[in-house]
């Protein structure tokens, strides 16, 4: 088989980097040839009596180091084996580094972490939810020191309407783990008759040795078995303990744990005020809608009795109207009649007869004689006067009037 150098290197790189037993490893050794490059990356060799190992710790990883590595220093490094193709070398890409001596603690930490993880201690299924409105908060920490004060101050500021139960314990040293585990169990015992809603378990920042109690199996078991939800608040944000993994919630600091444990009173007050406003608004609306409805009903629907009354009134009105109309008409007619009578009277021929005029009618056709041509000499005529007729015979006819 003929490879190019690159192909072979690629193959080796893949084989090495895919190997799970070369990933996430810790290596103990002494630093030599240490250089801190201007890029920020650190290059060095780890060696022991028999071998040496190229190492690189990139800037992003070494920024969090709490000490400065130097040649000759014994350390425990954690990271992955990787292949640097350009130079065809394998090297440890270091992600974490601790001075040796506490290397043993790290080993213990990693071992316990692995063991508990396998036992399901960190599973989400076991995580209890943290109550939103706790009435009683248990605090397991040192009675002295800033942590308890920080927690109490935060709670006092945010939501003082709670009861705090403190279980003072040592938080470092030989007995600390036992005391912490015991306090968690006692809190649970109390909670049977006197409910505790949430537990804050923690301490302030410190070295890995100082935080060690929170990495012990005893504490992990007590937290895991706790019926009360546990917020773990150990050290600073960068400190991670087994207790953090097992707890139902990990807070970066004790103060943060207190903030998580209680709601914000000011916000709550606003929420309640808002609900109150909506309540008042809604009841006004409910009433307004009803009022409108009633008004509508009043206008739209009339009681039958009212309807009859209205009808009766209407009838009365009609009758009155008719009466007025008829009377008015009669009055008009009466006037017409009397005027007509006057006219008739004025026109009556009898009137003229009274004043001395008379009417001449021919006989026998009784047509009125108003011209000489209607009669001839010797024909009979009648003269009508106020009280009777005068029979006459025409003697002579003359055209034109003789006024003598």
């Amino acid at each position, binding site marked *: 088989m003929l490879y190019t150098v690159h192909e072979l290197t690629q193959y080796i790189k893949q084989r090495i980097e895919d190997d799970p037993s070369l990933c996430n490893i810790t290596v103990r050794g002494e630093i030599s040839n240490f250089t801190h490059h201007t890029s920020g990356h650190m290059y060095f060799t780890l060696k022991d009596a028999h071998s040496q190992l190229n190492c690189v710790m990139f800037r992003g990883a070494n920024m969090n180091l709490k000490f400065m590595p130097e040649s000759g220093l014994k350390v425990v490094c954690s990271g992955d084996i990787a292949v640097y193709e350009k130079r065809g070398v394998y090297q440890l890409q270091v992600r974490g580094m601790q001075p040796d001596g506490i290397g043993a603690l790290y080993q213990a930490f990693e071992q316990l972490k692995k063991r508990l993880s396998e036992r399901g201690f960190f599973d989400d299924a076991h995580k209890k939810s943290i109550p939103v*409105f706790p009435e009683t908060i248990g605090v397991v920490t040192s009675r002295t020191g800033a942590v308890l004060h920080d927690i109490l101050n935060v709670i006092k500021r945010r939501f003082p309407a709670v009861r*705090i*139960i*403190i279980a003072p314990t040592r938080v470092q040293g030989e007995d600390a783990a036992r005391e912490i585990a015991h306090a968690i169990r006692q809190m649970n015992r109390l909670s049977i008759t*006197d409910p505790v809603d949430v537990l804050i378990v923690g301490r302030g920042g410190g070295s890995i040795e100082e935080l060690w109690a929170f990495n012990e199996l005893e504490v992990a078991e007590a937290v895991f078995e706790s019926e009360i939800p546990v917020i773990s608040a150990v050290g600073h944000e960068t400190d991670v303990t087994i207790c953090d993994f097992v707890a139902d919630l990990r807070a970066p600091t004790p103060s943060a744990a207190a903030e998580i444990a209680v709601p914000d009173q000011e916000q709550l007050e606003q929420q309640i005020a808002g609900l109150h406003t909506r*309540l008042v608004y809604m*009841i006004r609306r409910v009433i307004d809608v009803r009022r409108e409805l009633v008004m509508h009903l009043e206008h739209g629907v009339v009681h039958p009795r009212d309807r009859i009354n209205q009808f009766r009134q209407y009838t009365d009105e009609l009758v009155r109207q008719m009466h007025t109309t008829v009377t008015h008409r009669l009055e008009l007619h009466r006037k017409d009649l009397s005027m007509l009578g006057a006219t008739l009277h004025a026109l009556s021929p009898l009137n003229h007869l009274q004043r001395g005029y008379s009417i001449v009618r021919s006989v026998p056709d009784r047509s009125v004689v108003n011209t000489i041509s209607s009669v001839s000499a010797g024909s009979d005529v009648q003269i009508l006067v106020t009280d009777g007729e005068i029979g006459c015979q025409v003697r002579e006819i003359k055209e034109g009037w003789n006024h003598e």
Partner: protein
Amino acid sequence: MSKNEDIAFEDALKQLEDIVRELEESGLTLDDALKKFETGVKLSRLCHKRLDDADMRIEQLIEGDEGVRTERVEIE
């Protein structure tokens, strides 16, 4: 509503939220609406009171012969 005084803050707040929602969704008779309103006002007063008049109470866990109990302590 005489039991009101014993109600947990959380429950009171939740009841208040429910009542406001019910009123907003309407469909209640006037009588019911007024009753809900009355209860709601009581709850909102209760919630405020709970927040206002509570002083933080600090106790310490004490182990005795008959088990665990608590005792008032002053911290400062």
